[in-house]
């Protein structure tokens, strides 16, 4: 395998694919590294081999991945698949784990396009077998043509929850209930952003068509739900919750039998590699998440590192792709393949289109805020799924004087398990901030240290 290239792109979702393809076309020696076996990222996962009828069920937004993957494959960029990044430092030396062997690759420029992960939704019983993320349900559909066979409930908030409901309806899955945890106050708070979102009316129409399809299918939808919990002994048996105030201003407690519960409350940037490279991150109050600080070209705070797509703030697939293209232009300019005028000329149309795709975000962010109850869960709720640390223990650590997640980790083992804090990081920061009356910026985030993935001594030695 090659051990050096001019431009290394990490992540084969829309942003990474577009960045690698454009940069290769502009004459750079490009390698793209990705953990999956085929290009597409999570959004276009398995686009190259998904078959009918599943392809059509997934909708035309999914099929959009096809020309993008084709564009990448014929661009001349080197594609390194099935490769986990287990090491990255501020000198941009990148350690890859491929088929049980460790490799190192260096580059003059790095484009990080590591995408998003689902925002953790810690609630009582979320660790029970049978509870998964909505994204997991979608991945099973895309990559294995699998659907729930028993009673299925979707719960949480956000566009992806509507999308998977719509996709399941196409396949013919009977959804037993949709439990919406979006606070009632969100609609009036989102409306002022609606005029700004009008250029992206296609997003609005799509969302509306999902809502109408769900209504038409007669799926029970419970709104403004609180006290959501998964219940069962060693296996999910039921989902219980309290409904929002209805017309009679009353709340009702409801319990629904379920074998599968798919949770979702938005996505957050996957920051592990930007943090490892030393990139500055900032708290985004609107999106309630950390994001990598960057300029319009994707330039991060570290000279040779550019960032594109959801890892630099949630923007969605189409905007991510355009950001990838801007990154490619910037990298090609920095490495003397094109001059400033060529860069700016090529960027004009991309920027205009990007603006349109970004115009929907403030509205969506305000319409689907994560419910506070699942950002700072109650004491008994498990926060760290690996080391099994609950919210009460984290609050206790904060009261003892832990001022940030790194101290909490030392005292409680929270974030010290195999996922290295990916599933608890944002919750721990929120709990410490809440308990100590600090801001998220003051509290900060887990320090990221390699190895990012468990790696055996044998794999490390096997180069």
């Amino acid at each position, binding site marked *: 395998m090659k051990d050096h290239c001019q431009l290394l792109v990490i992540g084969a979702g829309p942003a990474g694919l577009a960045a690698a393809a454009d940069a290769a076309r502009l004459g750079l020696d490009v390698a793209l590294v990705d953990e999956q*076996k085929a290009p597409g990222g999570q959004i276009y996962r398995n686009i190259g081999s998904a078959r009918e009828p599943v392809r059509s069920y997934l909708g035309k937004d999914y099929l959009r991945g096809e020309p993008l993957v084709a564009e990448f494959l014929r661009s001349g960029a080197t594609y390194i698949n099935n490769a986990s990044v287990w090491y990255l430092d501020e000198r941009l030396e990148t350690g890859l784990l491929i088929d049980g062997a460790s490799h190192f690759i260096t580059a003059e420029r790095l484009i990080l396009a590591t995408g998003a992960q689902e925002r953790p939704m810690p609630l009582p019983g979320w660790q029970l*077998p049978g509870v998964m993320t909505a994204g997991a349900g979608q991945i099973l559909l895309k*990559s*294995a043509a*699998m659907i729930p066979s028993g009673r299925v409930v979707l719960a949480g908030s956000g566009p992806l929850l509507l999308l998977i409901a719509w996709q399941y309806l196409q396949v013919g899955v009977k959804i037993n209930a949709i439990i919406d945890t979006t606070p009632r106050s969100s609609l009036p708070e989102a409306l002022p952003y609606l005029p700004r979102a009008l250029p992206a009316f296609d997003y609005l129409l799509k969302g509306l068509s999902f809502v109408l399809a769900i209504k038409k299918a007669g799926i029970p939808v419970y709104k403004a739900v609180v006290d959501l919990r998964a219940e069962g002994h060693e296996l999910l048996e039921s989902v219980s919750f309290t409904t929002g105030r209805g017309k009679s201003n009353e709340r009702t407690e409801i319990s629904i039998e379920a074998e599968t519960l798919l949770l979702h409350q938005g996505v957050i940037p996957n920051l592990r590699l930007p943090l490892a490279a030393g990139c500055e991150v900032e708290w985004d109050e609107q999106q309630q998440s950390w994001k990598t600080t960057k300029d319009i070209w994707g330039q991060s705070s570290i000279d040779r590192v550019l960032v594109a797509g959801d890892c630099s703030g949630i923007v969605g697939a189409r905007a991510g792709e355009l950001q990838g293209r801007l990154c490619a232009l910037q990298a090609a300019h920095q490495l003397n393949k094109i001059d400033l005028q060529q860069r700016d000329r090529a960027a004009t149309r991309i920027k205009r289109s990007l603006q349109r795709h970004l115009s929907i975000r403030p509205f969506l962010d305000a319409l689907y805020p994560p419910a506070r109850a699942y950002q700072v869960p109650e004491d008994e709720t498990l926060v760290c799924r690996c080391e099994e640390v609950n919210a009460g223990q984290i609050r206790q650590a904060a009261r003892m004087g832990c001022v940030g997640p790194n101290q909490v980790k030392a005292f409680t083992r929270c974030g010290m398990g195999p996922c290295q804090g990916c599933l608890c990081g944002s919750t721990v920061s929120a709990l410490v901030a809440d308990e100590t009356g600090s801001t998220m910026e003051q509290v900060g985030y887990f320090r990221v240290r390699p190895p990012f993935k468990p790696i055996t001594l044998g794999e490390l030695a096997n180069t």
Partner: protein
Amino acid sequence: MFRRVDETSVDTLKLRIEDREYEVPVGISVAAAVLLCGFNKVRNTPVTDSPRLPYCMMGICFDCLMTIDGIPNQQACQLEVRENMAIEIQRGTAELLQQR
């Protein structure tokens, strides 16, 4: 808990989960195969011995750690099924491999 969408025909392979033989579609992940075969857990946690199934299916959560072909701590969602693969539920912490 999960089933396949009806497809015209699909290539399959044989593998073993907990010492029983199963036939699963080619190209799917180990985690998907274990769900498809109806298992109620892929591991028991080291701290409280609680059962877990895959949670994120995208390599983030590490809840799908299994012992595969004798090697513990493998992310079942990141590995593709292979003919004759031996998949075992991981109970508690992994143990060091014995010298063979």
